[in-house]
């Protein structure tokens, strides 16, 4: 298990990288964290002629948080994003999902953008990106474009990135007001790829009733799947019976069996985990609303009624 030979380039500027990528053509692969790529190289399942190492391009090493969401540079390691206090505040689903990405040692090197570009349907972050309606920004010698998550994943290990394009940034939209998220997955061993994983997002109205419920799924479809569960639970209070969400989701998925789980077991887990994340997300949303409400109701010291 040793990689085939390749030429190696390590540009320090983004422009240089993009030029090189254009020049080297389809025989080049980009190396970021390499936590998925290097095993494939070692098993000789991929054998690029050129490897373009972007680990020294400092301008890609960022996590930037704004009111609209979190921008994650192509060199931001999972562990950095997971610990980023700003990102946790703007979109708490990120840290919740990142905690499920392999083991900490892998997260120390692996990058979030790299994981998304790898487009493994069993990976957490592609599903999160899809659920949140985020996007990937790619740059090439012919310019820069932003690809919506729903257009980005074309098949297992296949993304919409074109030859010569370098994914430079992922954008995860912020948590909407009056909303909560949750993430749950079942894996055979802790840290393994999930047998089934679900990210949930719930938005409540002022009466703490569900106005939006959506979930993103991993390991149950060739590309990350997002289901709008709103119709199943719309108008129900956050602490009511939300199990219709799971029933709906179970019926909507068509998972494949593999050596770790039957298709029916996966479908069953879709239901169970959907309910868990929808309940969890609804409760978080309600807590948020009630906390805000409580803050608003608290009279300022010295204020006149």
């Amino acid at each position, binding site marked *: 298990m040793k990689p085939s030979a390749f030429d190696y380039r390590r540009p320090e500027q983004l422009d240089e990288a993009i030029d090189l990528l254009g020049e080297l053509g389809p025989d080049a692969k980009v190396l970021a964290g390499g936590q998925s790529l290097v095993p494939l190289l070692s098993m000789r399942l991929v054998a690029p002629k050129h490897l373009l190492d972007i680990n020294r391009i400092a301008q890609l090493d960022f996590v930037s948080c704004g009111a609209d969401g979190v921008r994650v540079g192509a060199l931001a390691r999972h562990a950095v994003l997971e610990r980023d206090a700003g990102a946790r505040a703007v979109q708490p689903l990120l840290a919740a999902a990142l905690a499920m990405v392999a083991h900490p040692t892998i997260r120390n090197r692996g990058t979030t953008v790299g994981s998304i570009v790898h487009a493994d349907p069993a990976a957490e972050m592609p599903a999160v990106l899809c659920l949140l309606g985020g996007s990937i920004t790619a740059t090439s010698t012919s310019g820069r474009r932003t690809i919506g998550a729903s257009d980005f994943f074309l098949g297992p290990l296949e993304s919409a990135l074109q030859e010569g394009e370098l994914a430079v940034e992922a954008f995860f939209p912020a948590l909407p007001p009056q909303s909560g998220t949750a993430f749950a997955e079942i894996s055979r061993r*802790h840290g*393994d790829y999930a047998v089934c994983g679900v990210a949930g997002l719930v938005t409540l109205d002022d009466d703490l009733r569900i106005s939006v419920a959506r979930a993103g799924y991993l390991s149950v479809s060739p590309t990350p799947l997002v289901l709008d569960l709103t119709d199943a639970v719309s108008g129900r209070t956050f602490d009511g019976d939300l199990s219709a969400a799971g029933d709906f989701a179970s019926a909507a998925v068509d998972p494949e069996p593999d050596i770790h789980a039957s298709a029916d077991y996966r479908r069953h887990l879709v239901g169970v985990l959907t309910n868990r994340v929808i309940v969890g997300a609804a409760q978080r949303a309600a807590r948020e609303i009630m906390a805000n409400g409580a803050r608003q109701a608290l009279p300022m010291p010295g204020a006149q009624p």
Partner: protein
Amino acid sequence: MTSRMVGEAVKRVEDPRLLVGAGRFLDDLGQDAAELAVLRSPHAHARITDIDVTAALEVQGLLAIYTYEDLTGPLADPLPLLIPHPAISAGRTQYALAKDEVNYVGEAIAVVVAENRYLAEDAVERIVVSYRPLTPVVGVQAARAADHLVHEDAPGNVAAHFVQEVGDAAAAIAAAPFRLELELAIERSASTPLEGRGVLAQWDSDSQRLRMWTSTQTSTGVRAAVAAKLGLDLGRVEVITPDVGGGFGVKIVHPWPEEVLVPMAARALGRAVKFTEDRREHFISAAHERGQLQQIEVGFDATGRILGLSVRFWHDNGAYLPYGLIVPIITSTQLLGPYKPGAYRVEFDSLYTNTVIVTPYRGAGRPQGVYAMERTLDAIASELGLDRSEVRATNFIQPSEMPYDHGLIFQDGRPLVYDSGDFPATLAKLKALVGWDDWPAYQAAARAQGRQVGLGLACYVEGTGVGPYEGGHVQIETSGRVKVATGLTSQGQGHQTAFAQIVADELGVSMDDIEVVTGDTRRFPYAVGTFASRAAVTSGSAIALAARMARRKVLKVAADALEANPEDLEIVEGMVRVKGAPGVAMSLGTVAVLSNPLRYAFDEASKAATQFVVGDSDLPPVNEDDEPGLEGRDYYSPLRSTFANGMHAVIVETDPETAEIKILRYCVVHDCGTLINPLIVEGQVHGGVAQGVGGALYERIVYDDAGQLQNASFMDFLMPYVSEVPESIEIDHLETPSPLNPLGIKGAGEAGVIPSAAVFASAISDAEGFAITAMPISPSDLFELRRRHAGTDGHNESIAKKEPTR
């Protein structure tokens, strides 16, 4: 008086070097060696029609390519069938490199030697092999059906058919008041040590000698095999076992193709050559174990006493049979555990399939046997509505019946006679430890909360310390330091520590002054190997005997020098002294000097042994019945195996929604006779239990119908991490010394893993209310079983496939 070391939880002497990165594992050696890579079959069953190496010849750094055509003399013959048995009707072993036909994915076809492994793999990739695919036989069912054959000359895919019977089992079952039949399955798993296989060889053309290092469980076995295959006198071959990164059985197989090809290439090329197996290779070209289908018929009375037991099983031995019938024979005999089943008949077929070979993996057939027996006892308890532990107790062999002769022949070709054991006491300890009597109340309370919990119990007896023998050599040097050697190898069991403890007690020296070497044929050329939980029993006993021999000589030489009777002397902290007169003493080093009459002095101390100083001029300097030096060499050859035993209990909780299986408690009561080092024994139990958890709940070897291994990586072969094992293992010991060896010890290495499939099946059955009859079990499997049983009455359903006949 020096405190006794045997029985103490002494910290391991191996650890300091391993902790600073100074261990010497196989791939740490031979940094300048050329490296070998193997072209392996991508087909499970095919004829090889052509091998074209032309493109590979262009690879820079290529040194040689070998195919079957290049093998000569004994190397061109099939590899040995190591353990012949009269029941083997079609014993087939592979060639070092495939000749015409391949029979599993991973079988070696060609090897490349290059300057390094990267380049060797480059060349392997460029070799073009043409195949004519044949239909593969995968799994026990396909092997039994025999619509296709693995080997054309092995009809029915049967390698061996074997029957043992005591009494008339069929008649006893027919006459019994109650009868049950069970069908059970257990899947393949594998040893998967963290370090794979590896071989390094150097050929010294000046002295025409081969020196090789191999990550093995038997250096003497490899030595003999390599000498035979390469046509070398045994004296020209040295085999050294470096630090070994785990074995668990797989490394007892020898010689692996690479173990003869690496020295062959080293001799041909005149330079050191090394092979370091990678993880994928380990899965597809080393060995697996465990896969069996079992049919059981049992007749019993209203108390649950077994009157007749008939077991028929089919054992998947993979594509070849290098290790003979050891695994199924152990299953068929150790199945009996602590029980006396009245009449017993066992019949098995060992079957060929187009998969990796099956050879012993820690437990070596016992887990399957215990699974069969314990599932049967649970079924009887369920059938009669009796407490599971009571049914077991009813069938126990009693201490007063020891030694107990089962009337069968064990894996070592000797009668299956248990030497000792107190099974009722072991059970009593386990029940107390796990709180057996409080269980029904706990389970009911949990059920009331919507929780599903289950308690499992499983008992086993393990034949350990099998022969034929091991030896030990103990030499006291003039420095006073003690050098100990034994021929068997170590792969993490702490032999250097445990054997030093034994010698410290026997000789009265500090452990700091003792150095133990294992698995080096230069130091001790007669040995068998490390398997069957035998090292402590056989080498430990041999070393004790050798140390006693050395001690006798110490006392004799010192007695002469001190003008005392040997009986009046004692050895304390490296000093020989007259009892009651500690001032009259000499060091062991001085005794060593005196033991070797010298003509030439090389230092101050040795002057004392020269010819004008020592000796009675009327006697020869070395007496007729004596020899120079202060050493002892002795052997321990057991009459037969010694039998350890134990019982495990596990409490699991199964998630009603996700079918995940969580371990709440794991309890072990274990009797391995005299404990040499409790720290090490408990470590062995911990590790065994973790492997058992893996085998019961996570690990399986999955082949598709084409014979492609679907999970040849640590990503998909689910060895437990810390998150999958019990947080603690509660252990209680019983020490029933073996009467068969000088130290009263029994083996402990495999015990932890033996009852795992059985104990988890028992616990999950208890939690779910239906019988588990196939192991390992995953949440997905449990989910599917729940659906299958959903229409039935749930609790107390019989494990048996059909209702009792009356």
